[in-house]
């Protein structure tokens, strides 16, 4: 028997645990459906009908920055692997890490000025 067998057993046990937990209410829980129960929560107020309206929300520009930082994260990770596997390239990787560090601090200072709320196409 191998570790793969142990992993398979563990996954079987985990799935069984989750399935049993999910099935227990079907046997033990009451089933008394009412319209009131199925209405979305409204903090004790009478629920109002569904309506759609504009929902201004801040901080979306950070999502754009996330894309950049996610790529940088992958680059840094791969560079660290290169640093381990090919030590003769250490100088270049150190320059890369140094540049990214300085750049990240610069961006950190500049981000304070970033407009985070977009209203009718202009930043606030």
């Amino acid at each position, binding site marked *: *028997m*191998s*570790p*793969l*067998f*142990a*992993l398979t*057993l*563990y*996954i079987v*046990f*985990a799935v069984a*645990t*989750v399935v049993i*937990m*999910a099935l*227990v*209410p079907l046997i*033990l*829980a*009451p*089933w*008394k459906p009412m*319209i009131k*129960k*199925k*209405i*979305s*929560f409204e*903090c004790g107020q009478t629920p109002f009908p569904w309506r759609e309206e504009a929902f201004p*929300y*801040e*901080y979306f520009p*950070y*999502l754009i*920055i*996330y894309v950049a*930082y*996610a790529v940088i*994260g992958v680059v*840094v*990770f791969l560079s*660290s*692997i290169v*640093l*381990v596997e090919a030590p003769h390239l*250490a100088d270049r*990787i*150190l320059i890369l*890490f*140094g540049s*990214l*560090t300085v750049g*990240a*601090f610069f*961006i*950190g*200072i500049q*981000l*304070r000025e970033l407009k985070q709320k977009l209203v009718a196409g202009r930043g606030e």
Partner: protein
Amino acid sequence: MFSTIIDILTSEEFIKAAFFPGITLVMLYALFTVWYERKLLARVALRIGPLHVGKIAGVFQLVADAVKLLTKEVIVPSKAYKILFVISPIIGGFLPLLIFPFIPFGSSWIIYPSNVSLLIVFAIIAVSPIPFLVAAWASRSKYPFIGMLRFGFQLFAYEVPLFLALIPVVILTGSLDLQEIVTAQKNFPFILILPLSFIVFLISSIAEVERIPFDIPTAEQELVAGWTTEYSGVLLEFIQLGAYLKADALAVITSILFLGGWLGPDIPFIPLEIEEPFWLMLKSLIVLSFILFLRGVYPRITIDRLLDLGWRTLIPLALLNIFIAAIIVVYIF
């Protein structure tokens, strides 16, 4: 046939998968965490905490709560996307269970040793919030919707530093194997040479599991229960199970990456097979206590400060620490 079954039941693999460090330990650890949090926070607030159910320190209060949630009617709001509303929390409770087979609890206590266990663990951690985001979206209600947006922003802001904080450890050890990472800390734990990484990792972990002061997505006073508002019964239990399992996993991983894992002073007359898990669990408990303790002493921070901390402070600090680790490896080791 009968002897084959006996062989399987008495095999090392079965014991590891079923008991230690398998499903029994994982579920008991999650239950213990809930009880421990209540007791700890009660002490912080000069209360006693669970007491009456169960003879010793209210230990069966958890069983009572679990039975209550399991026997409550599952209510699916009429406006919700019904299939996603039901399936998402179940998957969200299941995914963190998959982290534990790759975490070593001692030099021989691991279900599936892998030379890329660190990557596997963090791949699962990165994927695990997605079912909860889907669950919030499937609720089709305003409190879960606002909670979901906050949850998304928080995840985006803290997953990058969480990942970046690992890289110095990889650079120092030259390995992605959690067992080798512990062995590399034989002389000193990495917290001594990578204190910045430890702090960044710990703060990002707390944000990742939405613990106070980073519980903005489920802020009770503002959003009722945030993205979990429409959930009750067993589905809520799955959500809580997922959250506590992830907190437990991150506490253990923090101990492995920065606190020397299972390495500790020898205890006389205790075999290594017991001593190693003991030290790891003790260290994890200390980390877990810190994570839980914050709930008792800190207020929730506002979303602008939360995002500022993630994007403007933790990421540059994590990159600085990678640079420092690279210099240590190139010029000192």
